């Protein structure tokens, strides 16, 4: 059943040390694992390292806190893997009729690679505005990180979607993804439009 005090502490230390690393490593999996493998690995960890199992295991409050945060980090990694693998599966299903680049295996989506000048026409807050919703102080818009080519396609997609033309909107988004395969924002947008199309048909 649950592992011993020493084992779980060792595991927690290992997880916290690797916290910034790729998600699959935290679950001790290979890079291109399936959703089932991710679930199985997470269940295995839950069975041995879930903080509730160690509450009366002779751990100090600080040690329980450490196990809890290690477990929380692994849960976050599991979610990252689950959403990535779901997206990859969806892309594969779509690419049967149209060529779409396969999803890149980036551990965590990092909106805003540093150094790139945002293209013109990106929605940002006007300089003089203040207040909660605008203000000098929002994190960057995901569209800001797209390449210019991808952004052009995305704008076309937007206007197609505004017209209510879901099909060509989807096509434009796919073209945008082809131009900038690293954008999670685009892939989420594609999944949304795709779901919308399926609902309609």
């Amino acid at each position: 059943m649950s592992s011993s005090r020493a084992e779980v502490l060792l595991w927690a230390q290992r997880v916290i040390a690797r916290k910034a690393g790729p998600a699959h490593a935290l679950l001790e999996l290979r890079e291109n694992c399936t959703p089932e493998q991710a679930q199985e690995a997470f269940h295995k960890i839950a069975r041995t390292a879930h903080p509730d199992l160690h509450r009366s295991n002779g751990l100090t409050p600080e040690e329980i806190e450490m196990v809890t945060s290690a477990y929380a980090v692994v849960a976050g990694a599991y979610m990252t893997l689950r959403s990535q693998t779901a997206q990859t599966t969806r892309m594969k299903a779509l690419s049967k009729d149209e060529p779409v680049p396969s999803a890149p295996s980036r551990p965590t989506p990092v909106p805003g690679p540093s150094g790139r000048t945002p293209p013109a026409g990106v929605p940002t807050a006007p300089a003089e505005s203040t207040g909660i919703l605008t203000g000098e102080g929002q994190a960057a818009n995901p569209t800001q990180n797209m390449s210019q080519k991808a952004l052009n396609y995305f704008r076309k997609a937007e206007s197609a979607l505004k017209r209510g033309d879901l099909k060509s909107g989807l096509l434009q988004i796919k073209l945008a993804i082809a131009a900038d395969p690293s954008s999670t924002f685009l892939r989420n947008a594609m999944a949304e439009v795709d779901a919308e199309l399926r609902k309609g048909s």
Partner: protein
Amino acid sequence: MGIALGIDLGTTNSCAAVATPTGVEFILGQRAERVHPSVVAFPSSGGVVVGQDAKRFRLTEPQHVIHSAKRFIGQNIRAPLVQLALTGIRYKVTEGPNQQPIVVVRDRRMTMPEISSHVLLHLKRCGERQLGESVGDAVVTVPANFTDAQRQATKEAGRLAGLNVMRLINEPTAAALAYGFGRNQDQLICVFDFGGGTFDVSILRINGEIFEVLASDGDYFLGGDDLDRALAEVLAAECNRNLGFDPRQHPVLMMKLMMGAEAIKCHLSENDAAEGEIDGIDLPNGTTGSLPFALTRKQFEDLIAGYVNRTIEVTKQVLMQAKLQPKDISDILCVGGSTRIPTVRQRLADTFRREPNIKINPDEVVAQGAAIQAGSLSGSIIAGTGMGTRDAVMTEAHSPLFFGGAAPPKGPLARPVLLDVNPSTLSIQTAGGFSERILDKNSPIPIERTRVFTTARDNQTRVEIACCRGESRRFAENEPLGALLLEGLQPKARGDLQVEVCFRVDADGILHVKAADAASGAQQEARMQVFGAPTGEGGA
């Protein structure tokens, strides 16, 4: 160390239990009732009366009897649904600090957690009397889709009652735990929890001792109270037609109609028609009249069809979220009093093409699950001995753990592990009014996830991280949770500064947000201060 209780703090009724070696022992009231009405009365004669006894004051002084406090706990009083619910109650509620609802009884002003703490204290005292030991710890259940503020307020209620709330667990998960604990099977179940004020559906996979919630959704403003109100409105219209005056302005009378409606509703669950009279209606001309009524089950079903449709719609959505078909589900648990309504059960059976499980007691199963979790967390459930260490005395309060003739467990019982989920997507605002997801709906808790964001403009020295919950990609369409300000950043070109935003949802389902600038080391940490949440040290 005292005993750890499992408490189901409900809208209409509450229930408490404790784990013993052979099953679960319920905490009984003075009349040996297992189910305690969540009613708190402040009668003119003085004092505070809770439970069954408090109900008696509903007709004599309805303005001093607080019921359904769970509908308002941790809520913003200005929310439209709260305003609607306020039309159904006869006690006085005003706006307090932080837009939280405040109950006013004569000259006393009380917060909703204070009201709920009276119910918890009552259960604690009943427990101490029955068990002969002090009760220090508790596991309290909340609806799965309760917000951060509602959870914080519930914890606060426990604190005010002198209880150490070890954990808040979700009601459907607790029900699943009571159902599946010790069965040692691998199955998919659906928990349909339709209570007095809230509605939840969860799909769980029970695999041995692991209880994993696959998807969960619901409506914290949909319950038996709404059905009563719909029926009371019909009765009021009837009264207007027959007796020639509108009772809607008279609190005592409206309360009488609500109680009548509740009784008719329960009667129609057993019978095809309800016919009778509501007596003792004081007419404005000084005489007392009575209101005859006749209602068939079909008429009642038509009246509540809208509410029932909504529950079925949500159930189908949850199935979709779990990526499952109705045929994959091997059992459907009916939890909460409103699942006694035949049309609700019928619609469930139609949806799943399988009869729902009605062997479990819909009023008690949640407290039973909470007791198991309390026993497990306090370490009193010991593997190999069955259940808790408390000596079992078979009493009226005693309930065997295994329902419907399920075989008793073979071999030692493992500690159950609950893998619960957070009920809604949590995001932050990004430039252009978008919301960028950090934690998805239905992620396992406790969970921690960090994402890196950059600034939108050159030489930005402060960043405001506004958080929201909801599924929309537009920030404004989601429910705001609060904001965190990160100041003292080094001026840099836009896109060069990296801000790490870390969301952590703890095992109680409460969100903690942390933002840090890697370069300057500036760091801000906060638990979201939400509208309607208790203020001051109580919220910390």
